């Protein structure tokens, strides 16, 4: 059965003067999917999410969100979205409550329902006691939680989150992640941009990696890891200190890195490399203290793709 698409992007291009911020980007997000959009700073993540949410217009390409063309039917498309932008942008001179009432009204949520949802959300995010305080007195974590409340007041079908946990304390981060995961379990589509690879690895069904405005890969995090040849590694520790240069001379070793009292060796074929390592240890009269084979981390894949790109 064909899965319905929450987001369909094709040939998306956006230039700022000479700079091509987004270059013929193409990807799809399925309904109910937790989709990660990964990339280093300046890769084009925020530009892409701003186009998807109708804030800026692309120079070229098509964007469909839940069946609506974001350029042609932007109001209908936006009605189904919840957006947490990268920069905090609640009204600092309004209270948390008034911010929620305003956003609810902008989404056409009836007054009583707006009040009911605002109370529920503020309680869930532990902001209810401070509901009548001006946002200018809020900490970064509180502002970020309020932004998420504002994004949820219309009960959106799709959530666009631009670095929602960046720079937050552990407690706020955990609370936000828990709520997003819960919403995804309830069937909401989540589009998350982040440069926190571990976060994407833990949360996302699929990730797209973008660099210099181009998509380097789109796949499930696990598949991306397995697909990446040359990134499998062995972590080995000997009973005596061994120079990395000596290890690099072993056949099949692509790269070696000292990590404390261990050496991390990148190889293509783990089986052959282990045999070579054992021979090496025998020839040098070394004892192998520990030896672990490691699958590539998403970070390894990410760095490799960024370099290749």
């Amino acid at each position, binding site marked *: 059965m064909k899965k319905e698409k929450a987001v369909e992007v094709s040939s998306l291009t956006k230039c700022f003067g000479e700079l091509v911020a987004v270059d013929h980007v193409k990807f799809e997000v399925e309904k109910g999917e937790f989709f990660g959009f990964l990339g280093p700073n300046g890769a084009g993540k925020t530009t892409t999410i*701003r186009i998807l*949410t*109708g*804030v*800026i*217009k692309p120079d070229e390409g098509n964007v469909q969100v839940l069946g609506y063309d974001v350029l042609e039917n*932007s*109001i*209908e498309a*936006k*009605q189904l*979205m919840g*957006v947490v*932008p990268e*920069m*905090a*942008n*609640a*009204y*600092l*001179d*309004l209270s948390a409550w*008034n911010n929620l009432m*305003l*956003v609810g*009204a*902008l*989404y*056409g949520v009836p007054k009583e329902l707006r009040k009911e949802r605002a109370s529920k959300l503020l309680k869930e995010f532990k902001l209810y006691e401070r509901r009548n305080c001006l946002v200018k007195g809020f900490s970064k974590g509180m502002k970020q939680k309020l932004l998420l409340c*504002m994004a949820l007041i219309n009960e959106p079908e799709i959530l666009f989150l631009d670095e929602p946990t960046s720079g937050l304390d552990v407690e706020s981060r955990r609370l936000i992640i828990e709520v997003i995961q819960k919403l995804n379990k309830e069937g909401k589509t989540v589009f998350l941009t982040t440069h926190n690879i571990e976060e994407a690895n833990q949360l996302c069904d699929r990730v797209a990696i973008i660099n210099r405005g181009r998509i380097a890969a789109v796949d499930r995090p696990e598949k991306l890891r397995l697909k990446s040849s040359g990134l499998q590694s062995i972590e080995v520790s000997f009973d005596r200190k061994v120079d990395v240069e000596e290890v690099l001379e072993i056949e099949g070793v692509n790269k070696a890195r000292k990590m404390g009292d261990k050496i991390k060796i990148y190889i293509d074929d783990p089986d052959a490399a282990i045999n070579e390592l054992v021979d090496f240890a025998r020839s040098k009269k070394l004892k192998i203290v520990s030896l672990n084979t490691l699958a590539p981390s998403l970070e390894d894949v990410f760095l490799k793709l960024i370099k290749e790109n």
Partner: protein
Amino acid sequence: MNQFKRSLAIAEKNIRIYYYKGPVIIFGVLIPLFLFLSFYIGRNIPIKALIPGLLGMTTFFTSTSVGPAIVPWEARAKTLERLISSPVSIWTIFLGDVISSFLFGILVSTIPVFVGLLLGVKVLNPFTLIFGVVLAAFCFASFSVLLSSYPPSNVPASSMMLSSLVKFPLIFVSGVFIPIKNLPLIGKIVSSVSPLTYFTELARYSLQGSCFFPVEIDFLALMFFNVLFFVAAVKIHERTLPQRL
């Protein structure tokens, strides 16, 4: 209708946020009062003759006091992006800005009318006065939003300074202090391109029973300026918004 309700929500937000700010009090209330006093004190002019001018100036300054600063303020605070990512049209956003300035203009314009009544001024044509104030306040509010449309600066002070450069000269060519009929020909010609002229004329007609242009012309001119300023404000902002985001 849905979008209009959303405009009202934006207007309510503006009233909550911006109408307590310093520039609004200074440009909207204090400047017209000081200008009036500087013209009145030491001259042998009956106060009744000055009330239409004071009303015109107050409505003009209050309706235009915050409009030029809203968009730069919001762009700088990144709240403009919040509005644009909401399901509202560009028209809805700017109509909201105009409505808030319009309501503030109407509210404060009642002050010179009450002052006039206390000083014995009679309102000879109350309906003309009411319709005139409503049309003028909306026209000036649209004008204030237009003033912030170009150049697309995100610095409120720059926008306020530019708007003052346009607003102050208008005061002196719109029959606020000297009735149009007493102006030289060149003054009459210049005053005919100012929307404030037509409101001051209507105020003079409502309070003194006579004015230079026919009342119908005053109403038509104000309606024309209303449409012109609002459409121009929205269209120019629509073009310049990407440079602010």
